[in-house]
C-alpha cells in the first residue's frame, strides 16, 4: 500500500506516455483526454500523499539493483512539496500546450516526451537516494531534448546540441561524484546525514572536493554562472517547453538537487563546518547579478525571461547557502514561488507570440489594450520578480534578507536590493510599453502577425492557465499566513526536518 501509491503516481505519466506513443497522430481528442486525465490523476495522487504525510503515514519502496545499491522511492516532506508544485504546474502547462500546439505537426511526439518528462520530474522529487535521483535526472535530460528541438529548424537543432552537451557532461560529472561518494561511504539515503558527518576530519578535503563536483553537476541544470549557457539558447523551443524548462522541471531539478545535497546528504551542519556554504553564497550572488545584467541587454522577450530565470533560481541556491532556518525557509519557498511567477511570465510570452506574433520587446507597445488579461498576468508576474508585495516574490526576498542577517552576512542584502533594482530596470519598461504606449489598437503601427485565436483576447486554453497561475502567485503572497500556502509549507518542512 505504502509503496504502491508512489509507483502509481509515477506510473500514471509513464503509462500515459506509452499510450500516447501508441495512438495515431490524428487521434486528437483521445490524446487530449489521456493528457488531461493523467495530469488530474497524478495531481490527485500527490494530494492524497500530502494528506497522508500530514496524518503521519509513510510512503517508501525500495528494490535492490546491485548489491548494496538499491532503487529507492520515498515521499518525505521536501520531496512531496516539490512533487506538489510540479503536478500542479503540470496540469496548467498541459492545458496550455494543448491550446498552443493546435494545428501543429508532430503532436504525438511532443506529448509522448512531455509525459515522460513529467514522470522523470516526479521521480526526481520522490527519489530516496542519489542513485535513483540520477536515474531520473538523466531521464529528464533525454526526454526534454526532443521537446527542445521540436520545431526541427536549424536553430532548434543547434540549441538542442548545446543543451545535450551541457547536460550530458553534467550527468557524467554527477556520476563520478556519486561513485566516489559510494566508494567513500556506501549507499547514502536522503536524510542519513550522520554517515558523512561521522567520517573523520582526514576525509574533509575529499568531501569538499566531492561537494563542488556534485554542485557543478547540478549547477548546469540549475543554470549557475558560468554553466548557464544552454538556457538562453533553449528559447527556440515552443513556449510550453520554455515554461516547463524554466519553471516546472529542469532548472528546478538542478536547484532541488543542490537542496538535497546540502540538507539531506551532507547535512547543513557538516556543510557549514566544511566551509562550502560561503562559496555557494558567492556563486549565487555572482549569478544573481550577472543574470540580471545580461537580461538588461536582451531585446527579445523570451531571452530576457531566460536570463531572469538564471538570476532567480540562484536565489534558491543563495537561501541554501545561508546558514539558519530562515535561509532554508527562503530557499524552499522560493522553489515554489519562482515556479508560479515564471510560468505565468512564459505563458504570457507565448500568448503574445501566438496571438500577435510578438517576439521583440519593442513590438509590445499597446498590447495592454489588445490583450488586457494577459498583460495583467504579466504585470503580476513582473511585479513579483521585482519584489513588490503582495505578489509572492516579496516574501522570498524578505526571508532571504532576514536569513542573511541571521547568518551574519549583511552584504547579501546589497545583492538582493541590486537584483531588485535591475529587475525593475528590465521589467518596468515592458510594463510601460504594454500599458502606456499607443499601439496598433490606437492607430499606431501594426501587429507583426495577428491571429484571432478565440472569442476573448486569445484562445481559452491559452488564457485560462495564464490567469490561474497569476492568481496563484497573488494568492500565495496575500494569503501567506494560511495553512497550505507555499510559505507555510516550507516553514513546516524546515521545522520538521532541519531544526534539531
Amino acid at each position: 500500500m505504502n509503496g504502491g501509491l508512489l509507483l502509481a503516481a509515477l506510473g500514471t505519466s509513464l503509462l500515459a506516455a506509452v499510450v500516447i506513443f501508441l495512438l495515431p497522430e490524428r487521434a486528437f481528442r483521445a490524446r487530449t483526454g489521456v493528457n488531461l486525465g493523467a495530469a488530474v490523476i497524478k495531481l490527485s495522487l500527490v494530494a492524497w500523499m500530502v494528506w497522508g504525510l500530514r496524518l503521519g503515514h509513510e510512503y517508501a519502496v525500495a528494490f535492490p539493483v546491485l548489491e548494496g545499491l538499491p532503487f529507492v522511492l520515498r515521499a518525505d516532506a521536501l520531496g512531496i512539496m516539490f512533487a506538489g508544485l510540479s503536478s500542479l504546474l503540470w496540469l496548467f502547462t498541459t492545458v496550455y500546450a494543448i491550446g498552443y500546439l493546435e494545428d501543429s505537426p508532430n503532436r504525438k511526439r511532443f506529448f509522448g516526451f512531455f509525459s515522460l518528462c513529467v514522470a522523470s520530474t516526479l521521480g526526481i522529487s520522490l527519489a530516496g537516494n542519489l542513485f535513483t535521483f540520477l536515474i531520473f535526472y538523466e531521464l529528464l535530460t533525454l526526454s526534454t531534448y526532443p521537446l527542445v528541438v521540436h520545431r526541427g529548424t536549424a536553430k532548434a537543432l543547434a540549441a538542442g546540441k548545446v543543451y545535450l552537451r551541457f547536460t550530458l557532461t553534467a550527468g557524467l560529472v554527477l556520476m563520478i561524484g556519486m561513485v566516489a561518494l559510494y566508494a567513500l561511504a556506501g549507499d547514502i539515503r536522503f536524510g542519513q546525514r550522520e554517515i558523512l558527518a561521522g567520517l573523520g576530519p582526514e576525509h574533509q578535503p575529499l568531501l569538499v572536493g566531492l561537494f563542488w563536483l556534485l554542485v557543478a553537476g547540478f549547477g548546469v541544470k540549475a543554470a549557475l554562472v558560468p554553466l548557464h549557457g544552454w538556457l538562453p539558447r533553449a528559447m527556440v523551443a515552443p513556449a510550453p517547453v520554455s515554461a516547463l524548462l524554466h519553471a516546472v522541471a529542469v532548472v528546478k531539478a538542478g536547484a532541488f538537487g543542490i537542496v538535497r545535497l546540502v540538507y539531506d546528504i551532507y547535512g547543513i551542519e557538516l556543510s557549514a563546518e566544511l566551509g562550502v556554504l560561503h562559496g555557494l553564497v558567492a556563486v549565487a550572488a555572482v549569478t544573481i547579478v550577472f543574470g540580471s545584467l545580461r537580461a538588461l541587454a536582451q531585446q527579445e522577450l523570451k531571452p530576457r525571461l531566460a536570463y531572469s530565470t538564471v538570476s532567480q533560481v540562484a536565489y534558491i541556491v543563495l537561501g541554501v547557502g545561508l546558514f539558519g532556518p530562515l535561509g532554508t525557509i527562503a530557499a524552499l519557498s522560493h522553489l515554489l514561488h519562482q515556479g508560479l511567477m515564471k510560468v505565468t511570465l512564459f505563458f504570457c510570452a507565448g500568448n503574445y507570440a501566438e496571438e500577435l506574433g510578438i517576439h521583440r520587446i519593442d513590438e509590445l507597445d499597446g498590447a495592454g489594450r489588445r490583450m488586457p488579461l494577459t498583460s495583467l498576468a504579466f504585470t503580476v508576474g513582473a511585479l513579483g520578480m521585482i519584489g513588490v508585495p503582495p505578489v509572492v516574490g516579496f516574501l522570498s526576498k524578505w526571508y532571504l534578507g532576514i536569513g542573511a542577517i541571521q547568518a551574519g552576512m549583511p552584504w547579501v542584502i546589497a545583492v538582493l536590493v541590486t537584483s531588485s533594482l535591475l529587475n525593475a530596470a528590465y521589467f518596468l519598461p515592458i510594463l510601460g510599453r504594454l500599458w502606456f504606449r499607443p499601439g496598433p489598437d490606437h492607430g499606431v503601427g501594426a501587429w507583426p502577425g495577428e491571429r484571432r485565436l478565440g472569442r476573448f483576447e486569445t484562445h481559452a486554453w491559452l488564457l485560462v492557465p495564464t490567469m490561474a497561475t497569476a492568481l496563484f502567485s497573488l494568492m500565495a503572497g496575500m494569503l501567506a499566513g494560511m495553512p497550505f500556502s507555499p510559505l507555510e509549507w516550507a516553514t513546516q518542512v524546515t521545522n520538521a526536518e532541519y531544526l534539531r
Partner: protein
Amino acid sequence: MSEGLLSLALPAALLWPLLLMLRVPLLAALADRRRPALQIDGLWCSAPLPALGMALVLDEGALALDWWLLGGHWVLEGARGQLLIVTALLWLLAGAYARGYMAGEQARAVAGDRAATSRLTRFALLWPLTLSGNLLLLVAEDIASFYLGFAVMTFAAYGLVVNSATRDAHTGGRAYLVMAVLGEGLILAGLLWGAGSAETTTLGGLREGMLEATGGAWIGLLLWLGFGVKAGVIGLHIWLPLAHPVAPTPASAVLSGAMIKAGLVGWLATLPLGEAGAGEAFVWLGRAMLVAGLAAAIGAALYGVCQRHPKTVLAYSSVSQMGIITALVAMGLVAPALWPELSVALVLFAAHHGLTKGGLFLGVGIGEHPPRLPAWLLWLLLALPALSLTGALASGLVSKWAVKSVLYEGGYSAVVTWLSLAAVGTTALMARTLWCQWQSERQARTEGLEPLLSPMPLAWLGTLLAALTLPWWLDEALIIRGWPPLTDRLGLLWPLGLGLTASMVAWLVSRHRPLRLAPRLPPGDLWWLLVRAAQWLHARGQVSLARLATAQGRWVAWWVAREHKAMRMLDGMIHVESWLRRHAAVLMMGVAAGLALLMLMSN
C-alpha cells in the same frame, strides 16, 4: 464594541476604493463603443468616504490578520490617525474637483476621441488604486503591509503623472519612476536589515531593534534616504519639480498634499525619534538631517522663484516645506527631550501643509478656469492659502507658533532663525506663484467663465475652508500653544514683510532689466546633470561591452578551432582502420609467429 466595528470598518475602508477601481474596466467593457461610460461620477468620488468616516468616528483600535502576508497588524491611532483624516479629506475634495476638471475629457470621450477615452479610463482606474495604497500605509503596523501600501501608491501614481501623455509628462514620469525605484531599493535594504537585526515583523519592533542593532544608525540612514526620495530631501528631490506639475491638477494636489507626506509617515514609523538613549551615531544622523532639511528649505525657495509655471513654483515650495519638516524630524534625534511636544506640532504643521498645498494646487486650476466671481474676491481667495502657508494667518500661524515656541523653549533659537529665513523664502515663492497665476488668468478671462456651483470651484472652496480652519476641527489637542500673544506676532510676521519687500524689489528690477534666468534654470535642476552623466556612462559602458563581446568571440572561436583540429585528428585515425583491414592476414600471421617465437624462447 468598537473593536468589532473597527474589524469591519478598516477592511471596508481599504476595499471600497479597490472595488471602485474594479468597476472601471467593467463599465468600459459594458459600455457601447459610441457612448463611452461616464467613469468619474458621484460613486467614483466616494472612494475615500468610508476611510474618512471611520477615522472621524471610531476611537483608537487594532486589527490582527494572521493570514495576511507575514502576519497583518493594522491600527488606527495617534499621529497617523490624524494624518489619515486629513489625507482622506484631501483625496475626497480632489476627487470632487477632478469631476469638474475632467469634464472636458469626458466630453471628448463621448464625442468619440479614443485617446481621451483611454486617458480617462487610466485616470479613473489608477486614482482609487493610489488612494488605497496611501490609506494602507497610514494604518499598517506590520512592515509588509506598510511596504505594500507604499509600493502600490508609488507605482500607481506613475500612471497619474504621465496621464496626459505629452513629452513633458513622459519626462516627468521617467524622473519620478527612476527616483521612486531607487527609493524603494533603499527602503527595502533598510527594512530587511532592520527587521533581520531586530527579528521582528512590526514597525514598533523595528524602531526598538534599531537602537540596539550593530550599525543601527546606518539602517536609519538608509531609511531616511529611502523615504526621503518620496519626501523630497535635497539631492533626492529632483523628480518633484518635474513630476508634480505635469500631472493633472487634482493629481498634483494629492501628490503634493497627501502622498509626499508618506515620506514623513515612513520616518515617523521607522526612525527611533525621541528616544533618549539612542547613542552618538543617531545624533550625528540627526545633525545631517537637520542640515539637509534647512538647505532644502532655503535652496528650493531660491531656485523656485525663478520658475515660470505656477505649478513648478508650488512644487519647489513643497520641497522647501518638506525641508522644514525634515529639520523638525531631525530634532527628534538631535534633541529627544523636545520630541513629545515637537511631534504634536509637527503633525499639525504637516496636516496644515497638506491641505493648504492641496488648496494652492487646486487654485492653479481655478485660475485657468475662473468661476463667476468678482476678480477681487477670486484673488483674495487665491491669496488666503498662500498667506496661511507663510504663517501669517489661520492654521499656518497657529502651527508655526507651536513649532517656534517649542524650539525656543528647548534653546534652539538658531534653528528658529533658519526656519524664519525659510519662511522668507516661502513668502517669495507664494508671491511668485500668484504672479504666475495672474499672467495665465489674464488669458483665461478672455476665454470664458465657469459657473460657480460646479464641482471644481466648490471643491476648491471646501479645501480652502478645511485648510484654514484645520486645527479647530481636527483635534483641539494639537493646538499646544494656542494663538501667539500680540508681542510675538511681530516676531512671526517679519519674514512675511521681508519676503514681500524682496519680491517687490525683484519685480521692479526685472521690469527694467529682465534677467531671463528661467531658461537657464530648468525645473528639476540636478536631474539634467544626472541625465548627462548617465548618458556618458552608458556610452562608456557600450564601448566596454563591445570590447568584452569581441574578446568572448575570440575565446569561443579559439575553442571551436581546437575542437575542429581534434575532430580532424580523430578522422585521421579512422584511416588506420582501413589499413589494418587490408593487411589483416599478414598482421595476424606476424602476431602468431611472434607469439610462437616467444613461447619457444621462454621454454
